[in-house]
C-alpha cells in the first residue's frame, strides 16, 4: 500500500467517526443555543440509542430500521424527561452554569448505572445496515456503513440548517438563543423551546449511537468518551454553531485517526485533548468564528 492510499484510508475512517462526533457536537449546540446550558448527559443519549436498538432487535425481534426509529424516538422523549425533571427546576431557580453541568453529569451517571443494572456490562453490537463488501476507490476501502454514516449525517446537517433558517419554530429557537427575555416578550414559549431542544439533541445523539454501533460496540459506559469528543467538536466549531460543530467533529475524527495511525491508539485521547487546548489558546472562537 502506498503512503498516499494509506493516508487516504486513515482520512476516510477518521471522517466516519468525525461525523459521529459532529452529530453529538451539534446536540451540545442545540441545547446551548436554546438555554445557555451545557448538557453533559449528551453521551447517555448516544449510548441509549445504540443500546435500545440492540435490545429491540435481539429481545423483541424487530427489524433493524424499526428498532432504530423506536430507539431514537424513545431517547428523544427521555431527553424531554431529563429537561423536565433535572434541568427545568434548576433553570427556574437561575442555577449557575456550574450547577447545571454537575446536574447533567449526575444524570449521565444515573442513566449509565441504570443501564448496567438492566442489561449488564457485556459489550453489544449491531449488524451493519447493508451487508455488502466495501467499495474500493483506488486502493482505499470504504465500508457501506461508513457511507451510511456520511450520507445520513450530511442529510441531518442540511435538514437542521433548513429547520433553523426557514421554519418558524427554528427561528423562534434561534431567537431564544439570542435574547431569551425578548423572545418571551414576543409570546414565544421559551420553556417549550427548551424542551424541544432537549428532544432534538437527544434524538441526534441516539441517531449517532445507532450509526456508530455497527462499526464499534456499545456498552453502558461508552457515553462519556463520546460526550467528551462531541464537546471538543462543539468547542472547535465555536460553541453554539451547529455547522461549526460538525466541521469540528470531522477535524477531530481525522486528527484522531491520524494520531492512531502514526503513534498507536494510546495517543487517541492525547490527540483529541491537544487539539482542544490548541483551539482554546489560538482560536477560542472556533473554526468558523473570528480568530483571537
Amino acid at each position, binding site marked *: 500500500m502506498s503512503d498516499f492510499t494509506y493516508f487516504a484510508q486513515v482520512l476516510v475512517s477518521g471522517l466516519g467517526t468525525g461525523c459521529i462526533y459532529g452529530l453529538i457536537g451539534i446536540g451540545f449546540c442545540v441545547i446551548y443555543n436554546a438555554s445557555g446550558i451545557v448538557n453533559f448527559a449528551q453521551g447517555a443519549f448516544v449510548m441509549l440509542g445504540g443500546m435500545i436498538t440492540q435490545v429491540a432487535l435481539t429481545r423483541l425481534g424487530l427489524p433493524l430500521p424499526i428498532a432504530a426509529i423506536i430507539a431514537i424516538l424513545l431517547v428523544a422523549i427521555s431527553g424531554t424527561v431529563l429537561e423536565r425533571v433535572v434541568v427545568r427546576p434548576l433553570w427556574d431557580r437561575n442555577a449557575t452554569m456550574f450547577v447545571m453541568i454537575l446536574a447533567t453529569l449526575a444524570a449521565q451517571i444515573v442513566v449509565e448505572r441504570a443501564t448496567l443494572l438492566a442489561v449488564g456490562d457485556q459489550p453489544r453490537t449491531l449488524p451493519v445496515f447493508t451487508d455488502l463488501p466495501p467499495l474500493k476507490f483506488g486502493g482505499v476501502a470504504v465500508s457501506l456503513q461508513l457511507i451510511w454514516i456520511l450520507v445520513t449525517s450530511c442529510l441531518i446537517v442540511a435538514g437542521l440548517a433548513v429547520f433553523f433558517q426557514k421554519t418558524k419554530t427554528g427561528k423562534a429557537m434561534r431567537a431564544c438563543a439570542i435574547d431569551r*427575555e425578548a423572545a418571551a*416578550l*414576543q409570546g414565544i414559549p421559551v420553556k417549550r423551546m427548551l424542551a424541544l431542544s432537549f428532544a432534538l439533541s437527544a434524538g441526534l445523539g441516539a441517531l449517532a449511537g445507532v450509526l456508530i454501533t455497527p462499526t464499534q460496540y456499545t456498552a453502558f459506559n461508552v457515553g462519556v468518551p463520546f460526550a467528551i469528543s462531541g464537546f471538543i467538536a462543539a468547542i472547535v466549531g465555536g460553541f453554539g454553531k451547529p455547522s461549526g460543530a460538525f466541521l469540528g467533529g470531522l477535524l477531530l475524527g481525522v486528527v484522531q485517526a491520524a494520531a492512531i495511525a502514526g503513534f498507536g491508539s494510546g495517543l487517541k485521547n492525547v490527540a483529541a485533548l491537544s487539539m482542544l487546548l490548541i483551539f482554546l489558546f489560538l482560536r477560542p472562537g472556533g473554526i468558523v468564528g473570528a480568530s483571537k
Partner: protein
Amino acid sequence: MTAAPARILETQALTARYGHVQALSAADIHVCAGELVAVLGPNGAGKSTLLRAILGLASTTGTASFHGEPLPRQDPVAVSSRGVVLVPEGRGIFGPMTVSENLQLGAYRLRGDKAEYGRRLARVLALFPRLGERLSQTAGSMSGGEQQMLAIGRALMSDPKILLLDEPSLGLAPRVIAEIMEKLALLRDEGLPILLVEQKAPAALKLAQRAYVLVLGRIVACLDPRDLSSHDDLAKYYFH
C-alpha cells in the same frame, strides 16, 4: 357628567424588589382607552422596574390588571399573549436575524393565517416605510433609530391591545426621536393605548394625556401636561 372612561390597564400598590432593594413602592397608575400615558423620572427612578413589574418579569406584590383581570406573574409569555406588549429598554431586537425574521417573530402567536399576517405587515411597513426597504438586512446592522422602529414594529406585529415602551428615545438624535414620537401619536390616534416611559420629559409631554412622575421608586405626582406652565415645574421633581 360623563362616565369615567374605562381603565384598560391598572396597577394597585404594585411593589417590586430585587433581593432586599425595593425598586418600586406601591405604585398606582392606570391607562384608559385611547390614552397615551407617560411615566417620567430620572435615571434609576424605577421606570423600567414598573414596566417589568406589569409584565411579571420582576418579583412583585400588589396587582397589575388588564381589563379588570389580574395579569399572570412570572410568566411574560402569558402576559404578552393577552395583548400587553412591552418594547423593552435597549430594544431587545434579534440582532443577528433579518428585519423580516424579527417582524415574523413578533407575530409568533399568529398561526398560519397568511392574510392576517399580510395585513399586520402592511400596517407596520406603512408606519415605518424604512423597515420595508431593509427587510432582508441584518437587524443589528441598522442605525439605532431604525432598530427602535423595528422593535416597535415587531411589537405591533403581535396586534397588541396596549403598548408599553421603555425609553424609546434612548441614545437617539433629536430628529429621530421626533419621528418616533410622531408615530406613537399616530398609533394612539388609531386607538392603541400606550404607556410610555421616558427620562426625556419634553418629548413625552407633547403626546401624553397624563404623566406620572416617578422618583426613587415612588409615584410622586400625576400631571396634566396642559397645566404645566413651564418645565421648571417638572424639574423640581427631578432634582429635589
